[in-house]
């Protein structure tokens, strides 16, 4: 079968095949409903494992060999250690030393610390990446240097792909801050504590072989067992698996930029005036400086009005923990822990609960947790006049970011993007975004320092805000304002070669990224 190009439901031209496997075009939000049965891992038998429960292997290399590493396999790692991860690069260094070729790397996300992976893409150890291609890896990919086509998925989309067998993991390597010899593991204790291990949950359940790597091996039982040893084949103790100060930062602070503070303040005011901050509401704000400030402004409003939130979705940090401790929120349902206060709180406070993409954004679940959340605050590199949003490429065409949980959060009741109207001199609002990651119908409000645009589909919000003194403007007017200041940029130029595909939460292809013309 030869790959053809077709137009998907949002008007983007996409291939019918990705890395020689058939690709399904995006069909519209909530339209694609696969049937049949979920993918199942091989049957294992406990008698094949040591009866004393000790699954230790002396080294990661030995574990990979025992797990049967060979050409063309899919190897997964996770980003709980963020920019302090030492394991992913180590895995591919070993594979390269062993002369293994054409692996597929299936990380839950990549970070600048993964730049050395480029070497293994060049020497053929890795064929392509399905996950995210951030910073240097994105630049490498954008210049057409990766052998295969990259595939970008959301956190929920990664779980979906594993559950329906679109991606079959041969070996999962789970870096765990604390583990016991049976393979039970958690992220709340140990020198590399990162909070939780939710991004590795699917891999532990569905991968053919699972290796737990730790620098803090304790006696059985390792409690809480966020990753259950019953899924684990081998346990490896290493000297160091992460760089603590790069895993969690003790200094995540609210922004000092007056412009960003203004955007945060406008966002909070909008939510207050629109009646979104009410008793029992719920919200999710990220870890960026602006998002953190929005949390602080929310707290002020809640205190003033005597309002309590039922739950907040993390990314948790010290500001969210303060809200929990103060009683402004009943629960933190946490997907990622951004600082040491978050880790401590998760360890000590039963109302600070760890979650995984399975809990939060599972396309093949019986219901969608994201839809319960009232307010979600997200970022963007570009927005267009139809409210379609790009989060992976920049206006110059380079692929520089992953999707993360971004797409999954779009199903929340009110999706708000607080973004500057231009960065340097690059306007954020375009006629058409370079890459579509989220369809406009799911994006409700854009808040910039020069005005707020409400999606015309949200007639209820427009009606509620019609007497507001906030600077509410049509999105076209915001775009014109930015272009008057910055000038109109020339669109990025691309080669024909497709370097990456962007998956929607259901596994269909919503857009592709092409090689940048140098």
């Amino acid at each position, binding site marked *: 079968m030869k790959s053809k190009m077709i137009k998907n439901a949002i008007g983007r031209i996409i291939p019918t095949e990705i890395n020689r496997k058939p690709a399904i075009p995006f069909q519209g939000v909530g339209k694609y409903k696969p049937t049949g049965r979920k993918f199942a891992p091989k049957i294992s038998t406990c008698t094949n494992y040591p009866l004393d429960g000790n699954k230790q292997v002396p080294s990661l290399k030995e574990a990979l060999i025992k797990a049967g590493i060979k050409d063309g396999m899919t190897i997964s790692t996770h980003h709980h250690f963020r920019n302090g991860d030492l394991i992913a690069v180590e895995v591919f260094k070993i594979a390269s030393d062993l002369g293994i070729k054409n692996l597929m790397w299936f990380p839950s996300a990549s970070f600048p610390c993964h730049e050395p992976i480029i070497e293994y893409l060049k020497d053929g150890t890795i064929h392509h990446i399905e996950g995210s291609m951030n910073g240097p890896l994105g630049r490498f990919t954008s210049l057409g240097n990766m052998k295969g086509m990259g595939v970008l998925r959301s956190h929920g989309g990664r779980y979906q792909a594993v559950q329906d067998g679109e991606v079959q993991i041969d070996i999962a390597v789970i870096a765990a801050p604390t583990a016991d010899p049976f393979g039970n593991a958690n992220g709340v204790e140990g020198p590399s504590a990162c909070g939780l291990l939710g991004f590795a949950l699917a891999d532990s359940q569905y991968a053919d072989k699972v290796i737990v790597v730790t620098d803090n091996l304790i006696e059985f039982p390792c409690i809480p067992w966020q990753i259950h040893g019953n899924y684990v084949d081998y346990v490896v103790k290493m000297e160091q698996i992460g760089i603590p100060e790069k895993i969690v930062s003790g200094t995540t602070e609210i922004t000092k930029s*007056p*412009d960003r*503070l*203004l955007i945060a303040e406008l966002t909070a005011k909008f939510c207050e005036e629109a009646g979104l901050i009410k008793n029992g509401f719920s919200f999710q704000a990220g870890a960026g400086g602006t998002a953190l400030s929005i949390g602080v402004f929310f707290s002020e409003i809640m205190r003033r009005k005597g309002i309590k939130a039922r739950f907040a979705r993390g990314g948790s940090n010290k500001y969210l923990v303060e809200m929990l401790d103060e009683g402004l929120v009943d629960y933190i349902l946490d997907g990622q822990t951004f600082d040491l206060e978050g880790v401590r709180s998760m360890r000590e406070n039963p109302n600070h609960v760890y979650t995984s993409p399975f809990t939060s954004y599972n396309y093949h679940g019986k219901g969608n947790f994201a839809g319960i959340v009232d307010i979600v605050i997200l970022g963007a590199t570009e927005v267009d006049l139809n409210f379609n949003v790009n989060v992976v490429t920049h*206006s*110059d*065409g380079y692929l520089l970011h992953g999707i993360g949980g971004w797409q999954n959060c779009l199903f929340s009741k009110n999706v708000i993007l607080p973004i500057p109207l231009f*960065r*340097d*001199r*690059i306007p954020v609002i375009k006629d058409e975004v370079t890459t579509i990651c989220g369809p406009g119908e799911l994006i409700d409000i854009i808040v910039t*320092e*020069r005005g707020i645009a409400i999606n015309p589909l949200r007639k209820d919000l427009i009606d509620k805000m019609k007497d507001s003194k906030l600077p509410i403007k049509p999105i076209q007017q915001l775009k014109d304002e930015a272009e*008057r*200041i*910055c*000038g109109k*940029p*020339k669109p*990025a*130029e691309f080669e024909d070669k497709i370097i990456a595909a962007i998956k929607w939460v259901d596994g269909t292809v919503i857009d592709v990224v092409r090689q940048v013309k140098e």
Partner: protein
Amino acid sequence: MGKIGTAGNKGKSIRSDCFITLEITNSGGIKIDLQSKVKSLFGDSIVKLCKDNLKFFKIKNAKITIEDTGALDFVIVARIEAAIKQCIDTDKEYLLDVISQNKDHTGKDQNRRSRLYLPGDTPKLFMNAGIHRPDGIILDLEDSVAPLKKDEAKILVRNALRSVNFYGAERMVRINQIPKGLDDLEYVVPHFVNLVLVPKCESAEQIQKINEKIEKILKEKKLNYPVYLMPIIESALGVIKAYEIASAAENIVALAIGLEDYTADLGTQRTIEGEESFFARCQVVNAARAAGIQPIDSVFSDVSDMEALKNVVLESKSLGFEGMGCIHPRQIKVIHESFAPNDREIDKAKKIVNAFYIATEKGLGVVSLGSKMIDPPVVKRAQKTIEQAIETGKLSKDWRYDHEI
């Protein structure tokens, strides 16, 4: 090798600026080397702008390097012009069109509660200054600009006055001390500046020199609009001469005090309590009021302590000041809120303004409240209090409907 001119800023923390290296050559035409993070998006337009600029100055052969960090057009052409003027003698000015918002004039009595200082050689702070809604912005050519950068800053400030939308904030420029500051006027007066701050002012004579120069420039350029002055008192002598300065000319609308230099001149330290400057501040308020203009306080330099700022503003207001300088946009809101009238002041103003309306409705020449007659300046002041109360959300626009007579 020909002459080399350099202008602009580069380095790790620099954004929205560019650094120009220009070498005038004898042959070879124009060679442009553009290094920019927005090259693929704006490269063509930057090169075109650069060529146009060089052509305007009749430069046919040059090597020019542009190290750009996302500078807007008005910055790029200011930097190129500054580099050119280091290489050749010319009075020509490369001017972009004035945006329509920047031709507005301001009023003598308008609010001057907050004025935001913008260092004149730091363009990244210009674009978003207005969105924080200060009453005025100050493009500063004096203390915040390094001596070697003064010439470049003048050109940049001139272009900013024409091109940057400050969203209704009064456009002010702080020139250098007289006599040097007189040259600065050439770069600001023809470009619709609303108000000129005169630093370290010590005599009425300085004001006269400035006004002579302003009039000459406006006449030469066939322009006709008000250019207001705000002298800043920053020395012991200035304090003594405060009234002479405040009443030196019709276009003086406010008198400000600058406490950093003043305390240094006194040979003392500036303290939070401010006892050392109590006399000077009272003198400035008194002189300004005697001359019928606005008394304006100094800046508060701890940008992280909003609670302390609030206390300082309340004290400033109690002394009679109407405004303060800001060195950070986050100070603006605190200053506006703290200068806003309190409930007691609003109540009193409502009674007076209401009595004025009733008198007008009845066609009476005299406004009276109970048995007391109210003088016109008191009515005017009360009206301003009401305006500020409405603006800060402390009073409804329709307050008269609910007002009990």
